[in-house]
């Protein structure tokens, strides 16, 4: 954690970037209380303010999440191309609802606004990689691949 903090200048402008990097540095993809305290101390910002900023953005989480975060695009183009089917299929394969994490702490299912890849709708994003032109079969193989990778 110290190494990440020290990469940045002690300026409040860096708050969001630091929070992102801290969150991504962990397998559980979340910000703990200790993280927030350390950031507030490092940047000399009130703890309440750091927490207020972090809760404002939905990309930060405060509870442990899975290793792979699956974001399903909810925008109209994806919807028209079958995002509903994809969502239902995902819920079936993983056995969880949106906002939940699988018991093996591998997958977290989240909704997302437009991923900007409407050309390959319907699309999902797993961590930082986008998967497009999805069908239920394709989805199954992607998830299985990820399970094998662990």
């Amino acid at each position, binding site marked *: 954690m110290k190494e990440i903090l020290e990469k940045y200048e002690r300026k409040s402008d860096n708050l969001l970037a630091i929070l992102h990097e801290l969150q991504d540095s962990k397998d559980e993809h979340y910000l703990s209380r200790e993280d927030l305290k350390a950031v507030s101390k490092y940047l000399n910002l*009130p*703890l*309440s*303010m750091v*927490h*207020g900023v972090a*809760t*404002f*953005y*939905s990309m930060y989480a405060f509870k442990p999440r899975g290793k792979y975060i699956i974001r399903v695009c909810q925008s109209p183009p994806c919807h028209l191309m079958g995002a509903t089917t994809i969502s239902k299929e995902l819920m079936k394969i993983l056995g969880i609802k949106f906002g939940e994490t699988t018991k093996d702490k591998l997958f977290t299912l989240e909704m997302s606004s437009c991923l900007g890849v409407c050309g390959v709708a319907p699309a999902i994003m797993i961590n930082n990689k986008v998967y497009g032109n999805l069908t239920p079969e394709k989805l199954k193989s992607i998830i299985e691949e990820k399970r094998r990778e662990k």
Partner: protein
Amino acid sequence: MPKVKIKINDVEYEVEQGLSVLDAAESVGIEIPHFCAHKYLKPAGLCRMCLVEIKGARKLQTSCTTPVKEGMEVYTESDAVVKARKEILELHLANHPLDCPECDQAGDCLLQKYYDKYGLYERRFDIERTHFEKDVILSDNLILDRERCILCQRCVRFSEEILGEKLLAVFERGSRSYIATYNDEKISTLYSGNFAEICPVGAITDRRFRFKIRNWFLIKKESICPLCERGCNIYVETPKDRPYLKNYERLQRISSRDNPEINKSFICDRGRYDLFSLEENRIFKGIYEMEEVGWQKIKKILKEHLFTIETVILSSWMTNEEIDLALSLFKDYLNLKNIYFWGNPAGDEDEILIKKDKNPNSYYLEHKKVKRLNSKSKVDFKGSTLIFGDFFRENEFVMKKIEDESFVILISPYIPSFPEKINLLIPSANFFEKEGSYTNFEGRVQKVERIFENDKVKTEYEILEMIESILRKK
């Protein structure tokens, strides 16, 4: 300050340059409804309630963040403004629980006040209100109801701008946002009561005032806070004279009174809550050698002992007038050398309001060259001693110095802490029962009205007049 000419509702006014439209309108007596704007906080433009029409501007403008300009034409009650106000109020109330019957703020609430004038009266939302926690304990004195909150952030800005530390913040976003402290930690500050007072609605309320009495049954009487030498301006709130309010305590609440030069509109928690202790441990009967005596007897005993008095200890809780009269009697008329004063011992101080000296009138006594008693001062108490005010519990060194043979007369509103030393106790009025003026640490003289009547006791001034009549007759 340079002035600019502006037109408000087609009437021309001259107002100070640099003011916001909201403050400028207020300075000429025109009220623009607002929630988030506060006289002593920076404008935030959050609540949108203060929208006004400005000629030439494309849209309605928030008057709290718009500075006045020469030749500006403002309309505060035009059709567009009133329509916008109604709609904004409708949105503020979309999730408001409307639990006014059990809300302490009712009567003082800005939502109620503005809804009376700009209400829609018919709810157009058919969705359920969003729900939040209704009983978040913020500190020993404060409770937060997140459903009543309109997110004006006055509390957030107060802690940031006035206290200098951001104790509260808005968490989450949009319709889910709420006010909280990090990890629900309790607020610890000596100024916590101000959070309840600054809240324009009933979101943050005072736990010590909770469910005690309805707002509209209280009368606000002007006074100052005697608990330190700053002399903050306060309101003492007391129940109205109604038969059904007879059993209520006469002191219900202390709140701050605006004075831009002393305390702005804030007071510390000592003034707000500790002043209640002035009403405790009172004594209403004179006591002579452990027996109750009436005023006739007191006067007789005084006559016997007055001319043996050699030491006088004044109190720094006496008013300017009482000190003047006492000095003219004991210093100028009787030529006594041993005149001192005492008071609460010095305490902490900070840069916001709290001053070191914990008495209201030490400045005036020092100005009059009266010596302050402290544990190091070397005094010989000879003959009889006349002492004013005994509620300085930590000042026992004075009592210890007085020899047992000395005849001690104590003039005090409270039960003495060393009754065995006192020969005659004269009950006097407490701070709320006397009028006069006090001089604060910078030499500012402030008048205090008599707030409560009490026939059983006399003020120090009346007692001094009694002494004067005895002295001058001889």
